[in-house]
């Protein structure tokens, strides 16, 4: 039963207030993109047993989407941040490195 802090309204929201939105930081590929890029965007997933960056919506709260860095095996949450981010904030990356030295996820490390 996860609790995630919504970076917009500051509420420590219980999972039942939230709606999961799958992998974060996906780059959209539209018309004209090649098959590899499109498949990567829509289907291929990191799905690591370890660090994961993911989308959540505070659906029953302020209604805003936000992103979270979470460990898929310990469920530790390294931080949450606004959906309007093209990459995780440095302090969150640092927090991850402290626990998972040399971690790599997609283009991030």
């Amino acid at each position, binding site marked *: 039963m996860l609790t995630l802090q919504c970076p917009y309204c500051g509420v420590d929201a219980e999972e039942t207030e939230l709606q999961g939105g799958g992998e974060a930081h996906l780059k959209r590929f539209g018309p004209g993109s090649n098959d590899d890029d499109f498949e990567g965007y829509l289907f291929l997933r990191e799905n690591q047993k370890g660090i994961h960056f993911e*989308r959540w*919506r505070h659906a029953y709260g302020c209604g805003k*989407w936000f992103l979270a860095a979470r460990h898929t095996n310990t469920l530790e949450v390294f931080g949450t941040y606004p959906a309007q981010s093209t990459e995780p904030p440095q302090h969150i990356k640092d927090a991850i490195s402290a626990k998972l030295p040399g971690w790599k996820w997609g283009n991030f490390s």
Partner: protein
Amino acid sequence: MSTRLAKGGRLIDSTKPLDFTFNGKRLKGYEGDSLASALLANDQMMVGRSFKYHRPRGIVASGAEEPNALVNLGTGGKFEPNQRVTTQELFDGLTATSQNHWPSLEFDIGAVNQLFARFLPAGFYYKMFIHPRPFWKHIYEPFIRQSAGLGKAPTEKDADTYEHFYFYCDVAVIGGGIAGLAAALEAGRSGARVLVMEQEAHWGGRAVVDGVMIDGEPAEQWIDNTLAELDAMENVTLRERMMGAGVYDHGYVLGYERLTDHDPKLAGPRHRLWRIRTKQIVTATGAIERPLSFAGNDIPGVMLAAAMRDYLVNYGVSVGDRTVVVTNNDDAYRTALALVDAGLVVPAIIDARPQGGGELMEEAIARGIRVEKGRGIAKVKGRARVTGVAICAQEGEGAVLAEIDCDAVAMSGGWSPVVHLWSHCGGKLNWDADQAMFRPDATRAPTGDKGQPFVITAGTANGHLYSAEVLVDGYTAGRTAAQAAGFTPAATEAAVGEDASQAPLLPIWLMPQGAGHALKSKAWLDFQNDVKVSDIQLAAREGYESVEHAKRYTTIGMATDQGKLSNINGLAILSQALDEAIPNVGTTTFRPPYTPISMGSIGGAARDELFQPIRKTPIQGWHDENGAVYEPVGQWRRPYTFTRGGESKHDAVKREILNTRNNVGLLDASTLGKIIVKGPDAGKFLDMLYTNMMSNLPVGKCRYGLMCSENGFLMDDGVVARIDEETWLCHTTTGGADRIHGWMEDWLQCEWWDWKVYTANVTEQYAQIAVVGPKGRQLLEKLGGMDVSKETLPFMQWADGVLGGFNARVYRISFSGELSYEIAVPASQGRAFWDALWSAGQEFGVMPYGTEGLHVMRAEKGFIMIGDETDGTVIPQDLNLGWAISKKKEDYLGKRAQERSHMADPNRWKLVGLETLDGSVLPDGSYAIAQGKNANGQRNTQGRVTSTYYSPTLGRGIAMGLVHNGPDRMGEVIEFNTTNGGTIKAKIVDPVFYDKEGAKQNV
């Protein structure tokens, strides 16, 4: 025999007798009794039958760990199977019956299984019943099902109610023994919000029964003072009859509070399920005594030594007149002393340890009790109850040295800390070889959302068996938890516990250690599931070496007590058989709940009318009053049709359609989604959302639009109206309203966050009523107000105005092919407006129509319906909706996906109309068959029916479907299948069956 003593019984009130029945027998107990103590007080030694062999079973424990004494409790709507007599408080009028026997507890046919016991070893059913094949389902399995199953199935709906309760605290203490109370005291004094749960109705745990002294006084004194102090603290909540059922991630704890089980006459919910969020958890859950494995250890009258002490001290009940005590540790001596104190006979204490015990043994000897050191029990004599024991050398093979007559046996094989809650979320354990127990490893505690440890274990649950250590551990745990939760506790003087020093325990996993098969196959590990030492050894021999394999193969620990008594003994036997150290063999996983919790409590108040919300339109009341037959659509219930008198649904639908086509019909369309999209970039945004252009829609006009998922599949449709330069109003399907609004917000917040667009879901702001049919305009004109003429308000336009005194927004859109107005008024006036239309419409023969009429009429017009023509795999191109896909646009959601090879494949099935040759109605979901079979032997197909109805307008069946190259095959006759192997011929036709040129809607 077991009976009630003249004196003693600290928990009962002998001035308050209670009546109850067991198997119809009228029995007496006292207020404060547990059902177990009351049964024993009435010499009810046998209380049930075991699962596999149907062996006689008696009460073996005094708490939640009881594996044997399960009963059917109560009757009718209050009937409950498998209730533990040890955790059921007695109340006046209680009725209980024993389980798993036929015809009676005393005489049970199933007991013949015992005779074949030798032929029914662990896993026997994997090796038998294999031939002949049909026999398993028809003969073997039915027999096995009947003989299994324990309690009866309830036959009536639950007469009780339940509820949930969210609770937040800093420290949750689970267990109200002295360790838990000490922890609570320390945490409470720090100012932290503390919740203390005790599963029983009494505080203090074992301390009082064990005669512990604290600060020089009997433990009872300290417990009372502590409770008083805790009670006085604003920040501390004490709950008894509440079990910590489970520990979940991120500090989530389930508390299972039993409110009326002890007195069903009380008002209010039966159980309350607490959903607790806490920063820290202290599990002070105590320990459970282990049985010893000797032949006949399952015969009624053989009981855990501490349990026997409980019955004596707490309830004034003696289990036997002559009790032999058998042990491998000092604690059981307390039972012997208590029995003697109560004037009962203890013919011998059989101590498997060559040197025997310490202080307590000396005291026993001093009191004249015979102590047999280095001895064990070869076998227990008796069938339905103990008549005596044969003793032997523990280190031998069971040669009988002597026999002792007795009617009860008190056994103690040492203690196992209750580590369940510690382990639920991944807390790790260490094996303590000296005390022969698994103890929580504080350095490998469960971790929370910040990676911090969030469970601390204290007292006996942490492996401490001396009250002095238990108390210190409790205080420390409380202090540590409070600190971890952000408080600074003032270190206080810990109370000092004292109790007799004890000689070391000697691990004994089999008695005697050299027992042969005859004895091992009578030495029970799991009393309920009939698992014996020999079964575990067989599993190991056959290669079921993992502890999980052995468990599943023998079913040890899978009974309703989940192995509270059997797991460690079984594990030890397994490790011996594998010649591995116990920690290397490991434990099975601990899963919630600690003890079973009612399904009712899990559901809580969500039942009947509150099971799920039922969304209601402002006009629902009218529907209720006028014969609406509902169909669930999402959480709404929309009128399917309105039946009149004895009319069938089918006739009602037919009437509604014909009346709408010939006169005028009303449809409550309030459930349709309505989303405002506004901003400088709103047009650009909608162009991405819809397959067609919306940015160029003129103000005042309406346009039908399609929305696709990024996968290219058609997911919603509806009419969009341009309200002003910056504002559009998007209609969605009923089911789509919330989904599409969320979809819009997702793209605006996560992808195009720099676009200036705001959305608002105003679905429920309006009651929307469709006035449909040739006389619709007359009806509105009679209401009076705005001009609704063709000239001022032509087809596919909208206008604001006043109708019959109501502020209204009128859309000239049609989903039926008739002259049609969809009119939105403020929801608060929806009912009044409907009533106005209703009375004004009488002279025009107005009738309401429901969703089925809506569906049929749209099908007659060849309009597609999301969810019928689409199913998540259909793209607009399949539905010949190419005209609604902008060629100008570079991009829209789903466009890229639609370029994929399979989506662009010219061979996709496409939408057509279908007509049976005989006018009959094609079956729903029927497939068009093609020649031959595929590689997997399945009949090839070339299409399928997506919608099929009887059309009252045309007086024949009509259908729409997707057919391979359909649009190019007009007039061709193809065959559709029926579920009974038949086929129906149907002709491919234009999907528009009615008013092809659209003359009727455009007037």
